């Protein structure tokens, strides 16, 4: 049996939940498929307070924002949320197949919003496959979701926001952070996050990378090495740091498999951190009726993902004819918020990426 749905949202993270809510507010019926046991995406592990303005719940912690969105959706009769529901494919006839708690479901949505998020990038160095080397997000999941102390002594690779924030959270969980190393000559994350761990005694060393990791069955230590201005290791600058855990916070890449599979026109845009679907101003992909929002459309802060979700949800509902007047106001508000979030110096990368995307001429195809 094929289940008919108005709007299917794939991924129940910040973008997906906000997409579902905004579409529902305009009157549309929405189904959300989330592959995890609980919705919320990465919000469920984000114990720090969010930046932005009150429109993006600034000052609240990610976990609190996640809980609020989940509670709102649970009370919303227009939204059905399936957990342990992994979308397997989007077919040419518009049917979407889902593995839902070990059953095979077929769903036929009128509109699809892809909000599948991102995956952590890896780094190549000898010994990088040893147990004890994790993505920074994995360590965050262990300590902030499961409440398991993930390590005794950690070296963090990457001084972007994730590396800096997870270092701080590791200290809150009682883990020693031996240091943060960053290959770039500058700290990439917000400097307030850097200052916060620095004044707690964690050294941050820019122009450093991991030369190798060693250990028998599990990680026992790493050798770090300084980089010159051409990003080459400087012989003689090696230092060995004993540690049981190495966290890689070297960036995220969009989880865009479903966009590829659905036939969306894709583009590699470095500033958006990988291959992303080409989107129009309504966040619609080149396949008519399929939208994308959040990290899958380019890596950015969660605050922006939430606003993008709202934008995509509004666009999809409006295209079904729901509340055109109200939709127009909501779309306008979301666009203004995104412009505001991206207008400062820290938004320059994403602005450059979006500029490149706007120069790619997407050719619309029917779903």
């Amino acid at each position, binding site marked *: 049996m094929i289940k008919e749905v108005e709007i299917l949202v794939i991924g129940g993270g910040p973008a997906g939940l906000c997409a579902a809510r905004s579409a529902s507010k305009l009157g549309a019926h929405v189904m959300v498929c989330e*592959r*995890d*046991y609980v919705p919320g995406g990465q919000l469920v592990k984000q*114990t720090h307070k969010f930046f932005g303005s009150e429109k993006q719940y600034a000052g609240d*912690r990610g*976990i609190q924002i996640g809980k609020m969105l989940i509670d709102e959706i649970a009370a919303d009769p227009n939204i059905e949320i399936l957990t342990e529901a992994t979308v397997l494919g989007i077919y040419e006839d518009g049917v979407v197949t889902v593995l839902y708690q070990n059953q095979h479901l077929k769903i036929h949505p009128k509109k699809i919003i892809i909000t599948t998020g991102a*995956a*952590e990038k*890896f780094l190549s160095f000898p010994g990088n*496959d*040893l*147990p*004890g*080397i*994790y*993505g920074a*997000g*994995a*360590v965050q*999941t*262990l*300590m*902030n*979701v*499961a*409440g*398991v*102390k*993930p390590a005794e002594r950690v070296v963090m690779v990457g001084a972007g926001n994730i590396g800096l924030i997870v270092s701080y959270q590791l200290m*809150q*969980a*009682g883990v020693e952070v031996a240091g943060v190393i960053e290959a770039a000559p500058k700290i990439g994350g917000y400097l307030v996050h850097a200052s916060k761990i620095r004044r707690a005694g964690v050294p941050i060393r820019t122009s450093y990378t991991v030369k190798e990791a060693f250990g*028998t*069955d*599990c990680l026992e230590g790493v050798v770090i090495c300084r980089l010159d201005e051409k990003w080459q290791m400087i012989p003689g600058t090696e230092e060995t740091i004993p540690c049981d855990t190495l966290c890689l916070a070297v960036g995220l890449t969009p*989880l865009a498999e479903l966009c590829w599979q659905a036939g969306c026109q894709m583009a590699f845009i470095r500033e958006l951190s990988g291959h992303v679907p080409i989107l129009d101003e309504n966040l619609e992909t080149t396949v008519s009726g399929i939208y994308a929002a959040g990290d899958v459309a380019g890596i950015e802060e969660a605050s922006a993902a939430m606003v993008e979700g709202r934008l995509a949800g509004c666009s999809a509902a409006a295209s079904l004819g729901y509340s055109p007047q109200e939709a127009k106001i909501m779309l306008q508000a979301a666009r203004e918020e995104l412009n505001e979030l991206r207008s400062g110096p820290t938004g320059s990368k994403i602005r450059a990426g979006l500029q490149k995307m706007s120069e790619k001429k997407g050719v619309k195809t029917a779903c």
Partner: protein
Amino acid sequence: MRIEQHPVLQFDRGEKVTFSYNGQDVEGYTTETIAAALHAAGIRKLGTSPELHRPRGLFCAIGNCSSCFMTVNGEPNVRICVTRVEPGMTVEEQIGKGEIHYD
């Protein structure tokens, strides 16, 4: 080791149960993943790579990377980072690529 006190979080772990890991009893909670329970018990080496037999552990913890494959209740290639603990389940280190048994 489990975090008992945290400045921001409180943990609702669900019911405490026992499952089997390589024949030995390990405690876990019903709302946590097998990976979390094994880590809490100090088990970080989850298996070996199929070709070079190098030790393997958790990497992404959200079901993306497949570094944490183990055999659970006889079924191979289970991503234990996204599979919850159930009382009495058997979790085993997987040798090689695993074999699927058809009933």
